[in-house]
């Protein structure tokens, strides 16, 4: 910890905001300790000799005259082995250790290092003394969990020759290498610190192009997000934001997951804590917790720390990105972060903008999402890493015109619009397919052509067109009733319904349905669309629409989402069965038609004879 300097004193306390006077050399965003309990706070405004401080803990009991200490450092996180599997509050205090120390309720003024101090990690050097290294180079690694190799990097701004490098059991504060730069010696420790409000450095950004496969069909097939991309998921309460975020955390093909519970429910964090150690990652075969870091600043925890939590989370994400990993970060919910900003801004008596949010809401949001991206990392080995950010947005009353949603939509590239109307019908995920969009589609489709199937993009377009057509037809039905539709239109409605129910709908709580590989997504969609295409032919051949609708094979299509990943060959058989049973109908229809044609000929013949 940074050393503390002499005290200033409190002059004002208003909720989470404290004003202090007489701090020696206060600087913006410096960390301070407030009151005799030494609560954590951060300087957010300076006027003359007065510093406004947002306090990360409850301020009850503080009053004028109480001491305030400066630390001279900015609010920072500790980065090193031990991050994975942790649960931190918004300012990176380990909640598990806090419970051990202070019991079931979070007491105030607890100071606790984020990384365990005593634990020894097996450090395996990758470089030798005498070699020259520069910023970002990997000095060696620690196998932090079975899936995460923690790469110890030369910090930004340091280069030189390795004077000494260790190996074997080391603690996070131990020196792993000494780097000689001219006549300066840099001691590189196993862990490092980084100020959360400053983005970590990289060589250059590169455009995202690979799909982040989430296993959620409506997302991956219809509105995909790319690794290094940004997405938002706005929706009223109960529409499924948190379930989507949890599903992504569970099944996304990322190396590392950072989940930020920002101003939401305590039990939702508990759920992750209980489930993730049990669930197995389909890619690595290891428990999901072995690649996950949790940040929990729930709705009842201090509001200023909620504001900090998204920065704590994204800094940790960038750190793993810098090692060359693909990181996916979920922030649930960014609206609560924005509200924390609004609350502090109100106490600072700043001029309020729209709905009381500060005028800088948009720029703050934009610079947060800008920390996502695919990058060439520092270091001479040309590593690529990425941070994908998915933010939930909680618009008041579900009204998307409100400032946080609007500011978010201006910066993110993917929009999954949740709708309560769908949730009420228990159509989940309740993503409205007519309003949602993804700007990564072109990149992702090129990847599908190479890696899944070249028909996939066209298939997706057809399915999307079908859903759009359905919406138009529904409008007609609402005006004049179902009778007004032609058979072809009735079939379109039925086929669209099948896309919705048999493909889009996905039950997060079903053991099989919760995750669908991209390969299976393609097969399932092709199956659903195959029925439509064959049925269209059948209609042309004179088959009655009701016969098509009532085909028993449609029940099999409805069950196809439950086909296990290891039995994907069943899809071929199923498609064949679809084609066969419709061909059967066509054959029967044309036989009947012939028969009917003959009898009609007889009738007209006799009629002719009558004349």
């Amino acid at each position, binding site marked *: 910890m940074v050393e503390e300097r002499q005290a200033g004193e409190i002059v004002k306390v208003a909720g989470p905001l404290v004003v202090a006077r007489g701090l020696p050399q206060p600087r913006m965003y410096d960390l301070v300790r407030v009151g005799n309990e030494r609560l954590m706070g951060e300087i957010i405004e300076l006027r003359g000799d007065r510093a406004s401080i947002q306090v990360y803990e409850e301020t*009850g009991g503080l009053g*004028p005259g109480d001491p305030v200490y400066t630390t001279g450092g900015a609010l920072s996180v500790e980065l090193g082995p031990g991050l994975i599997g942790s649960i931190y509050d918004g300012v990176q205090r380990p909640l598990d250790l806090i419970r051990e120390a202070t*019991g079931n309720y979070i007491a105030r003024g607890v100071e606790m290092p984020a990384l365990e101090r005593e634990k020894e990690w097996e450090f395996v050097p990758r470089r030798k003394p005498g070699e020259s290294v520069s910023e970002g180079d990997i000095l060696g690694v620690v196998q932090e969990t079975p899936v995460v190799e923690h790469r110890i990097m030369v910090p930004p701004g340091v280069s030189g020759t390795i004077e000494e490098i260790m190996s074997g059991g080391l603690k996070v504060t131990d020196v792993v290498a000494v780097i000689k730069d001219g006549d300066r010696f840099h001691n590189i420790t196993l862990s490092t610190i980084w100020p959360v409000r400053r983005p970590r450095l990289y060589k250059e950004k590169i455009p995202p192009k690979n799909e982040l496969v989430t296993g959620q069909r409506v997302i991956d097939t219809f509105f995909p997000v790319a690794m290094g991309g940004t997405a938002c998921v706005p929706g*009223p309460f109960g529409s499924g934001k948190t379930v989507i975020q949890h599903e992504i955390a569970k099944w996304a093909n990322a190396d590392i997951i950072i989940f930020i519970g920002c101003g939401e*429910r305590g039990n939702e964090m508990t759920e992750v804590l209980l489930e993730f150690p049990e669930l197995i990652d389909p890619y690595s075969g290891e428990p999901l917790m072995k690649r996950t870091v949790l940040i929990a600043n729930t*709705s009842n925890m201090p509001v200023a720390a909620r504001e900090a939590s998204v920065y704590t989370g994204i800094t940790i994400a960038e750190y793993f990105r810098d090692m060359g990993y693909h990181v996916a970060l979920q922030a649930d919910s960014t609206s609560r972060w924005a509200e924390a900003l609004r609350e502090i801004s109100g106490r600072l008596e700043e001029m309020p903008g729209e709905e009381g949010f500060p005028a800088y809401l948009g720029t703050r949001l934009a610079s947060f999402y800008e920390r996502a991206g695919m990058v060439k990392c520092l270091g001479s080995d040309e590593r690529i890493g990425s941070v994908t950010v998915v933010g939930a947005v909680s618009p008041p009353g579900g009204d998307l015109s409100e400032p946080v949603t609007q500011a978010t939509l201006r910066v993110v590239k993917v929009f999954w619009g949740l709708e309560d109307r769908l949730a009420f019908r228990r159509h989940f995920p309740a993503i409205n397919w007519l309003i949602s969009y993804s700007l990564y589609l072109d990149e992702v489709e090129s990847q599908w052509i190479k890696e899944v199937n070249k028909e996939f993009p066209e298939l997706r377009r057809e399915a999307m067109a079908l859903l759009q057509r359905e919406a138009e037809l529904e409008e007609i039905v609402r005006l004049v009733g179902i009778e007004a539709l032609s058979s072809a239109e009735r079939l379109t409605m039925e086929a669209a319904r099948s896309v919705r129910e048999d493909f889009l709908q996905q039950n997060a709580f079903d053991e099989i349905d919760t995750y669908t590989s991209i390969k299976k997504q393609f097969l399932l969609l092709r199956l659903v669309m195959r029925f439509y295409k064959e049925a269209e032919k059948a209609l042309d051949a004179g088959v009655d629409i009701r016969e098509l609708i009532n085909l028993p094979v449609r029940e099999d299509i409805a069950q196809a989402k439950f086909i296990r990943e290891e039995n994907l060959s069943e899809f071929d058989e199923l498609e064949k069965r679809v084609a066969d049973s419709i061909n059967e109908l066509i054959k029967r229809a044309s036989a009947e038609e012939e028969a009917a044609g003959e009898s009609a000929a007889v009738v007209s013949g006799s009629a002719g004879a009558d004349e």
Partner: protein
Amino acid sequence: MAIKEYLTVKEIVGPLLLVEGVEGAKYGELVEVEFPDGSVGLGNVLEVSEDRVLIQSFEETRGLDVANTKIRFRGRGLELGVSRDILGRVFDGLGRPIDGGPEIIPDARLSISGNPINPYARDYPSDFIQTGISAIDGLNPLVRGQKLPIFSGSGLPHSRIAAQIARQSAVLGKEEEFSVVFAAMGITFEEANYFISEFKRTAAIERTVLFVNLADDPAIERIATPRVALTAAEYLAFELGMHVLVILTDMTYYCEALREVSAARKEVPGRRGYPGYLYTDLATIYERAGRIKDERGSITQIPILSMPEDDKTHPIPDLTGYITEGQIILSRELHRRGIYPPIDVLPSLSRLKEKGIGEGKTREDHSNLSNQLFSAYARGKEAKELAVILGEAALSDVDKLYAKFSDEFEDRFVRQGEFENRTIEETLAIGWDLLRMLPRAELKRVKREQIEKYMK
């Protein structure tokens, strides 16, 4: 510590007092406000700036003046004295006995604001509570440790439903000590009395603690009431190991009191004049529900709120729904049609459903069956809307069946007696029986084996 007394009130605005020349006041500190007539009310510190202190008075400020009002700082926040003897007693909205009984001799004095539960200490709620009400048990089940509000409207029977839940609630296969904490905020004497006589009639009163702030009691006092009640609940649950059901009614009046203070402080108002921190404030109440690892007891919350103009997007229901673990929404339309309980199941939700039901808890088919009932009822209601505009004839044959289904569903599944206590098996059986009205191919949410087994 000597209690300091000040006669330096400078301003009185609504419920707020500004006092100057104060030394050593602390944020959140409890104060005594002595009225010119000698009566004493309580208040607390909202803001301190140098020697100026802003106080919110829990008592009506009528009768206060600038010259003769005395302010005494108590050196601590508002506390509640607790012991087992609080059971069976009635207190005012600040926790002072009003039933003529003796003062409580406290085992402990607890700060009413409580500390946040460490998310790491929480245990996930998963014990199904059978309320005996099908619309809840079958579709939106209540789980021990859940916070599940009732969104209601004026004139709707939320009190009867809450009382029925309190009366009938049972956890299958368990006999454990339980109690009820009841907090009234701004409701009428009649409504409060309904609950009290209900508790008396069922002899639950011995296991009940009541905190009562009625419509004609000081409005600002009710800002403290839910916190006082939850402090009592936490003591009963996590010190004495009881399962506590907390009923908070009516949260709308609580929020209005908060708005009154915010307006008097001239804060920048959020939606409809409610303060921007309403979400956080409500969260510090609702998040006090739950279970804690290695603790026997639990706190289950049923807050009741009336939606102004029956509008679910009003900030009070809206922010509540964003915090609680679901909501039970009452429908004026069902009520008008004489259906009790008038629970609108579609927009209602229990977020803890999946963890609380299923094999070993209720029954293996429960989840699928409820999803099937939800989607069938939703489709039926849509069909009926269409029929209203275009006539029955405009519906497809299947949609006609769905329309009929939704009527039957409301009549047989949702509708039940106020004193009818259905077992979960009875509830599920009604559900399966209703599904027989639909073609088998329509039943996509339930498994084939389940149809074979339960739809006889």
